[in-house]
């Protein structure tokens, strides 16, 4: 499949692009997930990190995530305009040319990788480069339009930011960092398949082989339940590892129980029931999945904060 870099007549351009369009092409929501998970990994990882280096590293990771979002919008402009969820994006609406999206993505990719390698360390720069490559080439270009396992395999791209954050702080990657990776990796399928359950028509129109399109919704519901089960041992494992603490363990027990209960509710439903209440349970599960990841990572950082306060106050150590 070949793609032209020049702006196509399919997407009428209204130059010059507004700054808000340039921001939108960087996918701020995806950026926020990368910022949050990598920042938490920096906090919980061993090793001392100067706040200025931490701030600079988070910024360059965010720019790298934004760059991969721009390259994703460059490649997917043709299918983005077919889907309700994505047709308001800058490229399909003609507010930004495909060529602009491509060059924004390429330049920011190189810039973020070099700057992260210089300000933090080579390993984190290499990991960021690999993340961008994986998201753009492996997921967007190779997997997305070919296999219903697209978001399972491609989900690794979204799971890599904690590894980068860990590498920034510790200078290496340990088993705990891989467990954080695994948590996001296994969380991605239930999260995106819940979205696919109530956006299946969108994916069908764009001919994207999401599981709901290729195998139907009942199979998707079952797979959501399976992946939710698989999340539990990983979450508990993190709680028992060196980065876990009482807050994380407590929240992991409560969250996993609620998440599993909701996944079961999604599994038990039929499409007729879902149509009647406009996919209320599926939408709730999708929102819960966002909260799940936010709380899991948030409590890890809070446990680290508590540990520092405890050690400083009771043992006089810093």
């Amino acid at each position, binding site marked *: 499949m070949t793609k032209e870099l020049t702006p196509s007549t399919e997407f009428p351009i209204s130059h*010059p692009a507004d700054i808000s369009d340039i921001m939108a092409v960087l996918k701020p929501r995806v950026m926020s997930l990368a910022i949050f998970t990598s920042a938490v990994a920096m906090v919980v990882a061993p090793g001392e990190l100067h706040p200025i280096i931490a701030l*600079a590293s988070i910024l360059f990771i965010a720019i790298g995530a934004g760059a991969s979002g721009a390259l994703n919008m460059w490649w997917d402009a043709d299918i983005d305009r077919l889907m309700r969820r994505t047709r308001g994006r800058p490229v399909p609406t003609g507010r930004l040319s495909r060529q602009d999206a491509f060059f924004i993505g390429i330049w920011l990719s190189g810039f973020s990788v070099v700057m992260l390698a210089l300000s933090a360390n080579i390993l984190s720069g290499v990991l960021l480069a690999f993340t961008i490559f994986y998201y753009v080439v492996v997921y967007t270009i190779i997997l997305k339009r070919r296999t219903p396992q697209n978001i399972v395999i491609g989900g690794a791209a979204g799971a890599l930011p904690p590894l980068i954050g860990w590498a920034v702080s510790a200078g290496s990657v340990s088993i705990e960092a891989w467990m954080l990776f695994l948590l996001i990796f296994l969380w991605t399928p239930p999260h995106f398949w819940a979205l696919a359950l109530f956006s299946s028509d969108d994916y069908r129109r764009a001919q994207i082989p999401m599981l709901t399109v290729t195998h139907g919704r009942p199979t998707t519901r079952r797979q959501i339940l399976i992946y939710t089960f698989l999340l539990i041992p990983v979450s508990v494992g993190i709680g028992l590892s060196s980065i876990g603490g009482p807050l994380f363990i407590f929240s992991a027990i409560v969250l996993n129980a609620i998440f599993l209960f909701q996944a079961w509710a999604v599994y038990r439903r039929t499409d007729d029931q879902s149509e009647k209440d406009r996919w209320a349970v599926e939408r709730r599960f999708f929102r819960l999945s966002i909260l799940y990841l936010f709380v899991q990572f948030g409590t890890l950082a809070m446990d680290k904060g508590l540990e520092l306060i405890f050690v400083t106050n009771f043992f006089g150590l810093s």
Partner: protein
Amino acid sequence: MMKSDEIKNRRLRRNAVVGWVLTGFVVLVFAVTVVKLTGGSSLEGFDHTVRPSLLDTDS
């Protein structure tokens, strides 16, 4: 088609943002450089003289 005023306003807004971003980048690189050079501790200002921390105090 966009009006020329609108185009001018957009260009102005973009240029202003680019200016602020570049300023922020310069400040950030400077701050990172200082941290990297000092390793988190303060710089010793002993140009053209021997730094006391380098002297062998036993001899």
